[in-house]
């Protein structure tokens, strides 16, 4: 099935306002059995393209152009005719498998629904077909799982069910909008592998939309780069990623996190308008002592009543030297956020100690803890939720000075706020504005300004760049490294992304099910992984410097990840 898309414009029509153009002049063709990846940062209009193809744009947003599927222009069809195209000819896979599935309906019934609608078959046949599809998408124990509700399945399994639903009516084209963004890397690799295998086997076409260049590289033959509603460049994936022609693509690829050995490449993306002082000598280790020592920390959840006990953190020990970044990498549910809260003194561990400059923070009285706590601060994942929308930026940034008796007052405090804002690359005048006036990356800078204003020695950063676009992410990472070098700050840096942790960390710990499976200097752990789990993580991480590995036409020398 061939689809030819030629969108002249997608515009937003608002009452009493000029229509705003959201997407302009994007055209591509996907022949039968081909795969195209659309890559772009948030707001680039890539998801609007998917909705426009399906005729699912909200009514105040209108598309102009043609979407020709096997000679039929979908834009000329009535809503009723379109309903026979959606599902039957074009299948859709969504980002968030939890919300894309109906929580009140058994998964088997949800797969059968599409079959019954588009095929002349009965209930029993549809159920048998649903079972076959569940087995095809490799749901373990499908015979039992067919009657499960979505919440009884894991995230990866739910996305497999989502794929089964999209496949059920036998469409010729599959549109997948960020199909693996909500999944852990190892699960992501499995899902992408399954997707590639299925489209090859059923000779379907695939349109995959993602913000992640690595994902696109791993599965699509051709790539289209979008930015601000326009097509930047389009071509063979390998060519686009290895020899990008458009400056935007080059910038995007340069912004990808890469290990410290490519220092020159990192510095190409300026951290902030400040002169780069990254080359200053690192704060020297004083007599080799550590700033923070975490000793055998265990943190249990559970109720005594029903005897259930979950060990979120199960005997973790590590130490952070002053002026260094300790990275923790792990998948969701491995206990890394709980560990962060324990180190911050927000959660009391079930067992173990956290020593800050040799003092056990949990053996202190409340006021003692507050005094110690001025030495460590936190940066959060979601820059929307971490700044109080009702306060001015100046007040937000000054918050850690609240209990500090030595903190400057009046004019001196105002100067300190402005100086701190400037040191994270913001304007001093930004102090009077409110968080909603800033972009995600700027908000994260505000959060970092709040963390450093009290001159702490340690900052615990829990997924600080996960909610940011790649180019913004690179700037924030450079800012963090810059602050380490300038102020001798130590960071406990937590992330699910190997590439980010590898780029930024001096030492790393790979966390799995509440414990470290491997610790050591970053370059050693990532270049010579010892533990099987580390190897699996590194393998699963989508990278742009690898050949396409999921789907048809796998180069034979890399045959190991074919059929399972």
């Amino acid at each position, binding site marked *: 099935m061939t689809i030819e898309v030629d969108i002249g414009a997608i515009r937003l029509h608002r009452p009493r306002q000029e229509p705003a153009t959201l997407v302009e002049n994007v055209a591509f063709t996907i022949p039968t059995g081909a795969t195209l990846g659309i890559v772009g940062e948030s707001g680039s209009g890539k998801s609007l393209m998917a909705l426009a193809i399906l005729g699912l744009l909200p009514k105040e947003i209108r598309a102009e152009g043609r979407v020709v599927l096997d000679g039929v222009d979908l834009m000329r069809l009535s809503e009723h005719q379109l309903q026979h195209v959606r599902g039957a000819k074009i299948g859709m896979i969504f980002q968030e498998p939890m919300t894309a599935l109906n929580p009140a309906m058994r998964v088997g019934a949800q797969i059968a629904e599409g079959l019954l609608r588009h095929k002349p078959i009965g209930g029993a046949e549809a159920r048998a077909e649903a079972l076959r599809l569940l087995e095809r998408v490799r749901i373990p124990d499908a015979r039992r799982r067919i009657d499960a509700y979505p919440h009884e399945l894991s995230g990866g399994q739910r996305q497999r069910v989502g794929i089964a639903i999209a496949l059920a009516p036998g469409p010729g084209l599959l549109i997948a909008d960020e199909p693996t963004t909500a999944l852990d890397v190892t699960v992501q690799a499995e899902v992408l592998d399954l997707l590639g295998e299925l489209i090859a086997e059923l000779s379907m076409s695939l349109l995959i939309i993602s913000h992640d260049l690595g994902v696109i590289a791993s599965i699509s033959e051709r790539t289209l780069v979008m930015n601000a509603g326009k097509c930047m460049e389009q071509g063979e994936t390998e060519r686009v990623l290895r020899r990008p022609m458009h400056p935007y693509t080059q910038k995007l690829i340069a912004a990808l996190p890469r290990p410290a050995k490519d220092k020159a490449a990192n510095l190409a993306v300026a951290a902030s308008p400040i002169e780069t002082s990254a080359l200053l000598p690192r704060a020297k280790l004083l007599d080799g002592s550590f700033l923070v020592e975490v000793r055998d920390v265990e943190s249990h959840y559970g109720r005594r009543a029903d005897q259930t006990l979950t060990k979120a953190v199960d005997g973790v020990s590590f130490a952070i030297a002053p002026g260094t970044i300790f990275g923790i990498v792990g998948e969701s549910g491995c206990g890394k956020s709980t560990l962060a809260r324990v180190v911050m003194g*927000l959660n009391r561990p079930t067992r173990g100690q956290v020593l800050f400059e040799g003092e056990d923070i949990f053996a202190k009285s409340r006021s003692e803890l507050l005094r110690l706590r001025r030495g460590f601060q936190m940066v959060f994942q979601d820059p929307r*939720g*971490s700044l109080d929308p*009702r*306060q001015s930026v100046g007040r937000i940034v000054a918050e850690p000075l609240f*209990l500090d008796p030595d903190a400057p007052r009046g004019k001196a405090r105002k100067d300190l706020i402005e100086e701190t804002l400037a040191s994270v690359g913001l304007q001093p005048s930004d102090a009077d504005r409110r968080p909603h006036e800033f972009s995600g990356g700027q908000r994260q800078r505000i959060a970092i300004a709040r963390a450093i204003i009290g001159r702490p020695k340690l900052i615990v950063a829990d997924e600080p760049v996960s909610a940011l676009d790649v180019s913004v992410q690179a700037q924030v990472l450079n800012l963090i490294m810059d602050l380490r070098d300038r102020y001798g700050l130590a960071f406990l840096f937590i992330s699910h992304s190997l590439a980010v942790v590898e780029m930024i960390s001096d030492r790393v710990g790979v966390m799995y099910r509440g414990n470290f499976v491997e610790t050591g200097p970053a370059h050693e752990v990532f270049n010579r992984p010892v533990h099987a789990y580390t190897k699996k993580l590194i393998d699963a991480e989508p990278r742009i410097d690898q050949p396409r590995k999921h789907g048809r036409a796998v180069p034979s020398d890399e045959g190991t990840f074919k059929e399972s």
Partner: protein
Amino acid sequence: MTSLAEAAPRFGIGPRSGLLLGAGITGAFVGIAILSQFWTPELPTRMHLINKLKPPLVAGIAGTDAFGRDIFSMLMVGAWNSLSISFLSVLMGLVAGVALGTAAAAVRGWIEEAIMRFADIVFAFPALISAIMIAALIGAGQLTAVLAIGIFTIPVFIRVSRGAALRVWALDFCVAAQTAGKGRLRITIDHVLPNIAGALVVQATIQIGLAILVEAGLSFLGLSLPPPAPSWGRMLSDAQTYLSQAPWMAIAPGVTIAIAVLGLNLLGDGLRDWLDPRSGSQA
């Protein structure tokens, strides 16, 4: 390439006409209530038996009642009494309810449980029952009405403020405030209250509308302001006897109550839509 028709403003029911209409009605009532303290067409308490039971426009704008009192003047002063009792009672419910609700959200544990069960128990008593109980203790009057309506408003605000506060507490800036060494009370004042204020204003507006209805009910039963102070509810109750001879006696306060409550509800709903960033863009 925009045509004039597209660029020109469109008239008709805009997204905020409900809010504006509600604000207009409410503002008019507040204005009339304040005006009534300085001027009314007639003295609302002066009886004029020769003029009794005159239809609207024959004597005064809204006619006269069985004692020949000017109904329009009574409605004006009634607006003051009704609005002041409603406002005071909702203020009382707001202060007590928000204090308990935000405390429940801040402290959690068994204290939260106790506060919420207290709210459930108070909720189980209709305002009428508590008014009768309070009237039995301190006698009927303005204070009785304020207390009765206020008490039944408390659990509403406990629930609204606890729910909204819990959502704020789950946000990272509250954790950031904890790491800055702020206590629960301080965080509630600095971060929680400003962020739930919108929801509380909306709820308060709607509660005032409800309080007007309840106050009318209480004065209908003689549990609120004693005569001769005019009140909308007692005007209705007095009109009962004359329904066939002088229907305007019932219609005037009835319509007045309906419009006042409608205005406050429109204002409340409008404010909710306007303050809620999720419902469309704010210009």
